[in-house]
């Protein structure tokens, strides 16, 4: 049996006891053999992860059923016209009263952009595995669920306003607005380099919660304090007035 066969049987799980011993000896004494086994192990791990990612996406599709095709019929009975009119009036009425809140949501969406990672540069090909690298790697690749877990781990050991700030950004991405607000409200109290940035995101978070007054107040505080986003902040206040 040659070396390739050993590796094949290892992954098949068909090595006999004697063969397994020979396999382990090769692993210890033959660096090339060891490298090949390690490579194939990586391939296997990658394919498992790849498959998980794929199946997870499929499941998410199963949860959002596609809308059924419209069936058109040309027999408009008078009562249908009446019903449509009532519906139309109803919708206009709703639109009239809800314009206020949709517009704050729109303003939030057009202004919000997760703050870029300036803490931990991610270098391609580099494989740093400390928590902070993992956290920002997840953050940068928009994997916000994992980012939260890592940020929490960091904050446990070393509560820093910078990490809190990024955690708040992540919470906003996950639509956990009120949690983000609570966090940002404490973050803005400490005067450090991220204070102005935290104010900006706090203002946006208030906006998302439709709390226009608090948002305006925070924006004014930001303008008074720093040049960061002052143009955008001024424009936003005008739109909210």
């Amino acid at each position, binding site marked *: 049996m040659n070396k390739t066969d050993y590796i094949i049987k290892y992954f098949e799980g068909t090595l006999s006891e004697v063969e397994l011993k020979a396999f382990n000896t090769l692993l210890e004494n033959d660096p090339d053999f060891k490298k090949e086994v390690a490579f194939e192990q990586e*391939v296997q*791990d990658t394919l498992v992860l790849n498959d998980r990612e794929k199946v997870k996406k499929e499941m998410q599709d199963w949860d959002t059923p596609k809308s059924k095709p419209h069936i058109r019929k040309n027999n408009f009975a008078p009562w249908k016209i009446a019903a449509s009119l009532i519906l139309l009036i109803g919708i206009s009425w709703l639109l009239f009263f809800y314009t206020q809140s949709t517009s704050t949501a729109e303003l939030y969406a057009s202004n919000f952009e997760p703050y870029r990672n300036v803490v931990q540069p991610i270098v391609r090909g580099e494989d740093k595995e400390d928590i902070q690298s993992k956290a920002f790697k997840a953050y940068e690749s928009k994997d916000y669920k994992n980012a939260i877990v890592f940020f929490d781990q960091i904050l446990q050991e070393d509560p820093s306003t910078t990490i809190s700030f990024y955690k708040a950004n992540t919470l906003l991405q996950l639509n956990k607005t009120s949690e983000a607000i609570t966090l940002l409200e404490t973050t803005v109290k400490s005067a450090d380099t991220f204070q102005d940035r935290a104010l900006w995101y706090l203002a946006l978070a208030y906006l998302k919660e439709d709390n226009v007054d608090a948002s305006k107040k925070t924006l004014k505080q930001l303008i008074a304090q720093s040049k960061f986003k002052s143009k955008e902040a001024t424009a936003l206040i005008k739109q909210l007035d």
Partner: protein
Amino acid sequence: MIENGILTALKNDDKAVLKSVYMEHKSAFIGFAKTYKLDDEDVLDIYQDAIIALRENALKGSLDNLKSGLKTYLFSIGKYMIYKRLKEKQKLHLIDSIEDPSDFNQLTTVEVDYNFDTRKRELQIAFKSLGPQCQTLLNLFYLRGFTLDEIVEELKYNNKDVAKSQKSRCLKSLKQLVNSKR
């Protein structure tokens, strides 16, 4: 014991059956998870991971001699994952101390994560740029646990040597693709 037809279908990577299993137990699981302080998004996420664990264990053959039924098994995994998630969040929300469910010990332990490191991400990208034949062969071998003999049958190769050289050719391309990026 899981009904034979379902187990075979899961082993054959039958997505329609997986979907029906997924749909069948979803609302019951969500109801079951209601007693824990988790939001809906987390519960659905956990349910999906439990289904993935079920699928992976079926593919590995770990469910062949399972004593319990599918639903019991699925909910045990799910319960384990709920506890794990609660533990992770404990620091945040101060939940009363949590112990692992004791009935889980006889079952296969399952951790489902999606943590690609940089190297594996690169491998994934390289893998996706391989031809469909190579992708199928490597998936059958490394993911679904086919032996080379089974691959010969499945992919209608003439003999085992063809399968063997095809496999090493695919691995070689993969290695070249991923190394060219460095």
